[in-house]
């Protein structure tokens, strides 16, 4: 067992523990933080596979952005744990069946006969100077340029749709237009008045 294998087992243990705690912990904020830990350990495992671009992108996108927004939402929601747990025993048979099926399917697909070391050997270490980032970029923009751009278009459609679905402009909301604020001239805001220093003696009293 060399150093890298040790690192792999350490990261895997943390990953499995964190994944387990995501579903078992009672506090939703803790669950979200365990999910962060799971992502981070998964990124570590990818690093040991010399996929540093994917690993760092995982940390940047999921840990740095997605989970922050997720935490945001979870922290602001008023989650009633008792109501979430109400139907636990009622749903258990169905959930158990689904998870058993999932486990079965995964054993069939990922079993040692189809995914074992003899069929999918561990990747050969690349020579020094190999850059996963450069290789990935080259493949994405040459061989896979159309699928890549299609994915980009689909994502843009999703963004536009999400904004269109959730944006609502109330009629009576007031907005500031910074462009107009910047363009304001002195004359529009200040009016110089000439006033006598004393009140002229009034005749009305």
């Amino acid at each position: 067992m060399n150093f890298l294998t040790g690192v792999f087992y350490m990261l895997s243990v943390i990953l499995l523990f964190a994944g387990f705690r995501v579903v078992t912990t009672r506090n939703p904020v803790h669950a979200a933080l365990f999910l962060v830990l799971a992502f981070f350990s998964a990124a570590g495992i990818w690093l040991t596979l010399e996929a540093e671009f994917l690993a760092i992108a995982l940390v940047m996108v999921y840990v740095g952005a997605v989970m922050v927004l997720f935490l945001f939402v979870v922290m602001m929601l008023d989650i009633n744990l008792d109501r979430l747990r109400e139907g636990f025993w009622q749903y258990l048979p169905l959930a158990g069946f689904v998870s058993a099926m999932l486990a079965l399917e995964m054993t069939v697909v990922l079993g040692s006969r189809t995914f074992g070391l003899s069929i999918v050997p561990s990747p050969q270490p690349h020579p020094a100077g190999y850059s996963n980032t450069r290789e990935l970029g080259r493949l994405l923009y040459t061989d896979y340029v159309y699928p890549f751009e299609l994915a980009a278009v689909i994502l843009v459609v999703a963004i536009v749709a999400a904004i269109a679905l959730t944006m609502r402009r109330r009629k009576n909301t007031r907005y500031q237009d910074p462009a107009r604020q910047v363009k304001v001239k002195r004359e529009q805001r200040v009016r110089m008045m000439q006033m006598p220093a004393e009140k002229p003696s009034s005749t009305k009293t």
Partner: protein
Amino acid sequence: MMELSYWQHLFGWAWPGVWTLVRIVALVVPLMLAVAYLTYAERKVIGYMQVRIGPNRVGFKGLLQPIADAVKLLMKEIIIPSGSNKFLFVLAPVLTIAPALAAWAVVPFSPQMVLANVDAGLLYIMAITSMGVYGVIIAGWASNSKYAFLGGLRSAAQIVSYEIAMGFALVGVLMAAHSLNLVDIVNAQHGGLLNWYWLPLFPMFLVYLIAGVAETNRAPFDVAEGESEIVAGFHVEYSGMAFAIFFLAEYANMILVATLTSILFLGGWYPLFDIAPFNWIPGIFWLLAKVAFVLFLFLWFRATFPRYRYDQIMRLGWKVFIPITLVWVVVVGAVMQTPLAFLVH
């Protein structure tokens, strides 16, 4: 080098670990000293800008003031609010300082002086600094205080927004340098003032600098701790050393952003002009001078600008900076396809 091999024999198989540890200590100790004296510099610079003297009681010209502050904070009790989530409350400062220090692992000070000269250094820095937001958001939540929570939310939204603009500014740098390795990026700017990336990537330089101020929650973007509306923001419940850790992290992040600005846009360790009297000075002094200059800008901003309103911060980040950087990425890409490509190297 005789002595080095002596130590190597002494520690045997543990030598690589020990040697890395020694280098980490050699990086972190000067960094912590720099943080301490940055607080002193800040108080002095802002003091003079406001026609005050600043700290001048402890030691000669107040030079021992940061040490006195550190000792005071060490002595103070760490109060854990009774309604707080104790584990996360203690974890939050750790999660703030850890990324602020870990990011330094790939920062080069000269072509040889770098802890880990990794190929994807720029990506590593972006990934690690994006972790810093967790400390703030967890501190805000775990304190169980509405002010801390509001500060945490504000800060998290702000950091996430400006990170995008920052990332796009870095895309420009890596397009120009053809590399993600920080040493290679500096080497690509070989030469004097006019060869550095601040000139061809000027809009990105500005965006990076300003987004850096916003990322570190410094004035005029310090709504996370806007004392006039939410007391002190996310760290209002912290005291003693736990509070000091947040400050250490903030200043370490400031120095990190200043160093990165110097490395990515201001030519790193290359002298101002590549002629005789200037390039006699060792490169590290040039780098430190540039870092000091950018840090001075940070202090200057704080003394000059009033705090942004929250919606204006969001507008600036999303509607101004991101479009600017996106347009400039296209411009750089287009220029690189023309005979004018030498302009962006």
